[in-house]
């Protein structure tokens, strides 16, 4: 397990929003699994980070939740994206792309130094 990285707080929120956009209403376990799978099991999401992050997003109004029943008839809380959440997702995704692009330029194998 040591080889799998924990997710940073900031990016986790973005991943949650993206997941909910892609898959629609989903429970916490589903979100965690999806993030882990999408990362090719490079990331580990435990509930100590996931649930506080979900709570924060809900408090900020980006997602909402309601109780539902899972595939195997278990009571579970389903989260779904709100309109504010969709906007926030667009915004954060854009910012993130910008950030990675900038960083990529810095880290690209030394064009200037060459």
């Amino acid at each position, binding site marked *: 397990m040591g080889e799998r990285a924990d997710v940073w707080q900031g990016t986790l929120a973005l991943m949650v929003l993206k997941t909910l956009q892609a898959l629609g209403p989903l429970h916490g376990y589903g979100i965690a699994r999806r993030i882990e799978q999408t990362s090719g099991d490079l990331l580990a999401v*435990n509930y100590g980070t996931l*649930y*506080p992050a979900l709570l924060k997003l809900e*408090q*900020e109004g980006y997602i909402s939740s309601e109780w539902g029943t899972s595939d*195997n008839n278990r009571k*579970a809380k389903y989260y779904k994206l709100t309109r*504010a959440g969709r906007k926030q997702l667009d915004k954060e995704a854009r910012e993130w792309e910008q950030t990675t692009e900038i960083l990529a330029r810095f880290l690209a194998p030394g064009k200037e130094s060459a």
Partner: protein
Amino acid sequence: MRRVRGWLLRLGGLFRRERREKDLATEIESHLQMHIQDHLRAGMSAEEARRQALIKLGGIEQTKEIYRQRRGLPVLETLFQDLRFAGRMLLKNPGFTAVVVLTIALGVGANAAIFSVVHAVLLKPLPYPESDRLVMVWEKVSLPNYQNDQNEPSPGNFADWRSQNSVFENLGAYRNRSFNLTGAGEPVRVEAEQVSAGLFSVLKVNAALGRVFTAEDDQPAGRHVVVMSDGLWKSRFGSNAKILSKTILLDGESYNVVGVMPPDFHFPDRNDQLWVPIAMTSQDLANHGSHFLLVTARLKRNVTLAQAQGDLNRLAQHLTELYPDTNTGVQAKVIALREEIAGPMRPVLVALFGAVGFVLLIVCANVASLLLGRASARHREIGIRIALGAGRIRILRQLLTESALLALLGCVFGLLFARWGILTLKLLNPPHIPRMDEIHIDTSVLFFSLAISVLAGFIFGVLPALQATRDNINDSLKEGARESAGGASLRTRNLLVILETALGVVVVIGAGLLLRSFLILERVPLGFQPRSVLTFRIIPRGERYSQLAGRTAFYQQAMERIEALPGVKSAAAVSFIPLTFARSSKGFSIEGRVAPAAGEIPMAAYDAVTPGYFGSLQISLQSGRDFSWGDTPQAQRVVIINKTMARTYWSGEDPLGKRIKFGTPDDPFPWWTIAGVVGDIREYDVLTAPRPTVYLPVSQADDSNYLLRDWVVRTNGDPLTIASSIPAAMRQVDPDLPVSRLRSLEQLRNISVAPQRFSLSLFGLFAALALVLAAVGIYGVMTYSVAQQTREIGIRIAMGARRGDVVKLVLGEGLRHAALGVILGLAGAFALTRLMERLLYGVRPTDPITFACVTLLLAGVALLACYLPARRRRAMRVDPIIALRHE
């Protein structure tokens, strides 16, 4: 925006906690189950699936804790937790809590009550618009034989100030008078003011109904108009708006009512019910020689008091040059109206405020001491909590929350006490306290009380809290650790005892000084005998009494009627009875002496009286004779002078038969022959020394200024028993003249020392409070200290010490601390009592007798507070065996 929403929701997260907890548990459980399910599907055994899931997901409880922190606001949650815990602790020891809360409530209550008075009297703006620009203008007279910083201005000076100043928007003049109001129910005497038309515009107050005076109203030829108070309108005229088209009868003349003032308006006196134009003639307004007005003015915007004073100084100099006869030595003096009203109360209130401040400090010391005692009882609890990982700051916070809760509870009950205090004060209604109707518990008082409570809570909470968390955990967890821990707290508590004893000494000495001066005041010889004397007022005004003969007839008839009542020895009338009124004085000349320079003319106060006045009041006749009804206008004009006058102007001579004249020798006034000399009396109040006084026989005093208002009736027993028969007797003489101010001269005498009695009572109350608190403090610490030393005492007794020795040992220590406190307190009092010098009479602020008595008193109280626990409670009864097993 989003963030704010987040915070609000988190705030909401503080509530409905159970439901949220359950939701969280369900959510996590279902997460776990889904995880296990997946593992099962992957072919693991049930046990292994669960194990793996738990490993991966981490501790459930930790997750919940992180979640909770995100859900609510940890700071607030801790506070609530602390408050709940504090509440439980306080409920667990209801006795302790009650004592502490009561102590704080007494301290806060006393402070809140005094502050509400201070606030209303000294701090609040006056109830007139832009009242900070209102001032009083006085004459400041400095002549060789007469000095007065607040002399009543003459109409001439008022008129010249008004027309020639450059600093006031307007000036208004007024003087007090009273009217007999007839034709509206029973005849009644009402207090009134004669005012110049400008007065209401100076105050910027308008009538609630109708109007105030115009310049035309304020003309000598103007018709009679009157403005009345809301109170009179309600009580006598049923709040009828038609009052404006009506006339009312004042002293038998009809007046048109032009306005009714707003309900809360009063000026200058609370009792004023009517205002009439003063209507001074142009002759009056040129008179610089008689001084009887009061003058209020409104400063122009942005003009300071100093600028106004400067302008008036310039003006006064100019007037002195114009009118050297009357205005030599006459300056003007400007005082802020609020200061004028509050002035005399300031030193009293400052002293009282200081005293309650000290009481509050004693309260803090006492409560701190109690909390320290309890902290050592809770020592083990705190030790365990520290051992279990509670941080020192966390425990400090917990303990401070407890003291804050105590302080707030104390504040609530304190405000109740303050409310009772203020209600009592209003019931007593001491006449010398201005602005009584403005005294109540308002937001400022609430804030003040809350602030001092919080501050007090911090003061008395921080020391025990620090003490409780300072000790080593290991010590506190060990059995038998009480000794060392208790020792540290005992030292602190001893310091507190010293402190509160010292504070108590200062307050008690303050009260002692006031008591001493009050006792001296009570023994001041008045020069007359108030016992068994009834007084009342009836003023013969109206058509019937415009001439001297009519008035004299009235006095004679009234006198006969009263003296015919059973139980009456004698009756007489006078312009003003002693102890109520500062008489005006007049300049006079003595026949055959060189006329004095301007401004050095001899001055004497004057009173008109009926025959028998001196006998009725038992004022001693030193030489000559009393007046008789035979002193008619046709007979020789005679006067009686007082001893001070005889001594001042005829030292070494016999004044009998000498002649005097009011005014200068050239004035066209009659000469009066001195027919008698009587003893001095205290005319204005008990404190003011007698001054030269001339008494005139009313039967010869033809100027209507010499109206007799007050009657003195000497009776055989309790004067109040005949009080009820006076109005009926007077109705037989004239049914239209109301009788007022029926009271005994003793009552009047008490009223005249009411201000001193008031400060003494309050100061005494606070001193008693301080004393009791200090005694309780000493007692508590001694009890505790004896309990702490049980073992030591046991050993001593086992070793053969006699019980007396043990008592001495315990007592000695307590008394040492008390003595140190007394010494510190004496030093403090020595430094502080001079601040109350203005409240003292006949006693120096460092009066050795007071200091000695208070020292003895405090020593006695301390001895008692030490002796009781030392003897009764433990020390004497300690069985050595039990004591040694004590650990």
